[in-house]
């Protein structure tokens, strides 16, 4: 079971909201889809500048593996206030710990419609359909 203290996008990002700050990352399923269990297959992660405004569902970055490039989508609207400085040079963090140390960005949640979010149970069901 994936952590139930957060919500999920069907494009495999997670968001954990504490007060008005949303911490955003990607799920273990997303990492495995990208690199098939071979962490060396991740090659690049493009994260945004601080201060940028994102809409819910908007692409804020890209992650690239040997095979393909995937968009990173924001589950919430707001201002990007923090970017994980360790990710760019240590993509293996995403394989080791996608739920905690592998967070990508923090967003100060602003006004605007939220994206359609799934709870952990609904996300599990989505993954089960793909497996």
């Amino acid at each position: 079971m994936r952590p139930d203290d957060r919500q999920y996008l069907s494009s495999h990002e997670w968001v954990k909201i504490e007060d008005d700050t949303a911490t955003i990352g990607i799920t273990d399923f997303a990492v495995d889809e990208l690199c098939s269990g071979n962490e060396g297959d991740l090659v690049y992660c493009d994260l945004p500048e601080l201060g940028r405004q994102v809409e819910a569902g908007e692409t804020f970055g890209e992650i690239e593996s040997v095979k393909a490039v995937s968009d990173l989508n924001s589950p919430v609207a707001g201002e990007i206030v923090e970017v994980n400085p360790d990710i760019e040079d240590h993509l293996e963090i995403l394989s080791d710990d996608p739920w905690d140390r592998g967070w990508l960005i923090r967003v100060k949640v602003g006004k605007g419609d939220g994206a359609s979010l799934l709870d952990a149970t609904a996300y599990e069901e989505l993954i089960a359909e793909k497996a």
Partner: protein
Amino acid sequence: MKQTTLHDTHAALGARLVEFGGWHMPVQYGPILEEVKCVRERAGIFDLGHMGRVRVFGPDRVSFLDSITSNFVARIPDGAIRYSLFCGRDGYPIDDLLVYVDPEYVRLVINAANTEADLAFLHEHAEGFNVTIEDRTDRTTMIAVQGPEALEILQSACDSDLSKIGYYRFGRSTVCSIPNTLLSRTGYTGEDGFEIYLREEDGVDVWNALLEIGRPRGLQPIGLGARDTLRLEAGMALYGHELSPAHHALEAGLDFAVSFAEEKGDWVGRDALKALGESSTRTLVGVTAEGKRPPRMGYPVLADGVQVGEIRSGSISPTLGTNIGTAYVEQEFSAPGTELAMDLRGKAAPILVHPLPFYSRTRKPKKS
């Protein structure tokens, strides 16, 4: 999704399977770049069961094929193989293929994703010719062994001298105790090696036997991910990338597969392709990218901030130790060494035009 006879074998080997051309195929068994190195340094075995396999029989088979494919089929000797294209009336390719001329029939090996369209094209133009078209894809299978150790590995499983089969030729041998098995000295990797044609029911036994025989020499199963990098390093076109309904054979540099000889007669798309070749202002080039990010299909190519082309393929190249790709660019930007950029969503990353192929096992790599 269709499955090759080796589908469950791949799953048991731990492969990651994905949809490819309507088939559920192994994209990798382990890290893709390690698989590329394995084929360049030792040998790899590939399941190519998804490729379309068609036989054309009948007294008119050669003239029929000369009327619908770009290469000059009547000039292919018995036992030889040529690369060719099917073109639409507009001159743009429907598919690329290999043509095997057997004394009894002509064998065509076509792309999985295009098999249905190719069969429709063959039947559409067969009227008036005394030919029979037989789709053998589901009754047969195909395995490739590629790499510097491929010949030695296969030789130990065969009862005739494989070194007598020349490049782009085919012959027959007992392979892993299956008599009269067709082997061609072809591949899509830039390495020496063979493609083996089998009855579907023999596929698993031969695959397992070859893996066992080849293991001491480092033979490993290789997925379609590494195969794409291998073919790109070797400068070989892939339909949907370097060739497409909007990218024709002449701008892709495939003149060697296109015959405008009068003796060949007219063929579907001939005059249209000739006109396209005369009016085309762009050409296919190789590019290298020193940054972290490899080129990817669809990235705009820029010169001084202005778009002058488009990336069509890209990969990390373990063999060259850099990122590589192909691009169509306007001809004035096609000289090796030309400094261009690719547009990564508004960020320009430098790329350098590089001669194709990037890798040749027989030629020393050219420096750009």
